[in-house]
């Protein structure tokens, strides 16, 4: 209520500044909600007053950019007020020209950016389109369609079968060559020679036990020793034991027959 009176007194005070002085009574009536407004242009103006009153905006200091945003939100609810947007745009243009004039005089062009009007604003169609879309008129509908997908054909199943067969064959080959390698590898190493070498080492100890890890240097040598050790243990020629399971030292000792 207070705000209404403030705006009315502001309008009366600014009477001389009005573009159309004779409209002053109409403005006051609009502010006081006394008349039903049919004319879209007047409704647009009414919306300006409403917004200023609702938001308690200082009539002497309107931030045009902020105000426009609020204004758009307001008229979104009333698509017939599209014309109001148009008016605001024109007002914006006029104000911009005015401020440009002022700025030019003051040589403070850097502030120009603040009131930059987006390019699309200038075109009638673009403006019209954008406002209507904002007002929920859509150029394409929300539609539900299927995800593009189709059945598999028998030929595709068969091709898959062929591929699978090839893959399996390759796998078998790899497996075969892998096991083949191991056999070859062991043969090359010649287990019998390894056994001899281990026996020689152990017999030098005069029947004393030796920690397993002292029998080899590095992983590779360990492999060449383990197999002979297991073989010798199985034959009963050596004894293998561990002090503390599972982390204790493993010992090897020659058995005396």
């Amino acid at each position, binding site marked *: 209520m207070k705000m209404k009176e403030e705006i009315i007194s502001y309008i009366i005070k600014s009477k001389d500044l009005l573009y159309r002085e004779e409209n002053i009574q109409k403005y006051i009536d609009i502010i006081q909600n006394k008349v039903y407004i049919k004319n879209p242009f007047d409704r647009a103006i009414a919306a300006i007053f409403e917004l200023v009153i609702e938001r308690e905006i200082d009539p002497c200091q309107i931030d045009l950019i902020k105000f426009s*945003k609020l204004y758009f939100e307001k008229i979104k609810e009333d698509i017939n007020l599209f014309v109001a947007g148009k008016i605001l745009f024109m007002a914006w243009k006029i104000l911009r020209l005015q401020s440009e004039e002022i700025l030019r005089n003051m040589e403070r062009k850097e502030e120009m950016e603040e009131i930059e009007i*987006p390019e*699309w604003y200038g075109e009638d*169609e*673009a403006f*019209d*389109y*954008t406002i*209507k*879309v*904002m007002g*929920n*008129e*859509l*150029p*394409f*509908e*929300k*539609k*539900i*369609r*299927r*995800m*593009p*997908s*189709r059945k598999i054909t028998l030929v595709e199943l068969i091709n898959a079968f062929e591929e699978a067969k090839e893959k399996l064959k390759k796998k078998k080959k790899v497996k075969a060559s892998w096991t083949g390698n191991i056999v070859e590898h062991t043969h090359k190493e010649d287990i019998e020679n390894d056994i001899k070498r281990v026996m020689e080492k152990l017999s030098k100890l005069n029947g004393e036990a030796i920690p397993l890890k002292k029998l080899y240097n590095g992983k590779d040598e360990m492999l060449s020793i383990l197999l002979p050790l297991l073989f010798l243990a199985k034959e009963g020629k050596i004894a293998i034991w561990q002090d503390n399971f599972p982390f204790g030292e493993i010992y090897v000792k020659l058995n005396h027959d």
Partner: protein
Amino acid sequence: MIKKIIEAILFTAGKPVSKEEIKKDLKVKDEDIEKAIKELMKDYENSAIEIVEVNGKYVMQIRNEYVEYVKKFAPMEISKSLLRTLAIIAYHQPIKQSDLKQMIGSQVYNHIKELRKKGFLKVKREGRTKLIELTNYFYEYFGFEDKNREKIREILYKKIKG
């Protein structure tokens, strides 16, 4: 036979299909395709499914009345507010992210993220500016034959004008 093949194509494609695409595999005349599609449209009159023309292409889709019931089953669901943003981008593209923000507010970030996820947008960087553009998938999905910006604007504007 032609009719059923076209029916199968429309069902499978899940997007608007042009006469040219249909003709590539079927050696038939345009008017035969048109006739078959007209008949199909009639066959589906009493169905929850419809065949409609979208920018000169044909698409099989759910009728509006049933959209609400099947939303949950749909592979792609676009909300109305997302669609609104997409419509604005479609008209103004390439559009700066900052300009779009001026139009739709801070929801711009979420919307761009969503629309990119759905494959409708791409974002290009030009120095410090982010430029938003439509993808080929957009044109495909909404059945735009021509990617010419002016033409698309014209089509969009006409649709809104009614």
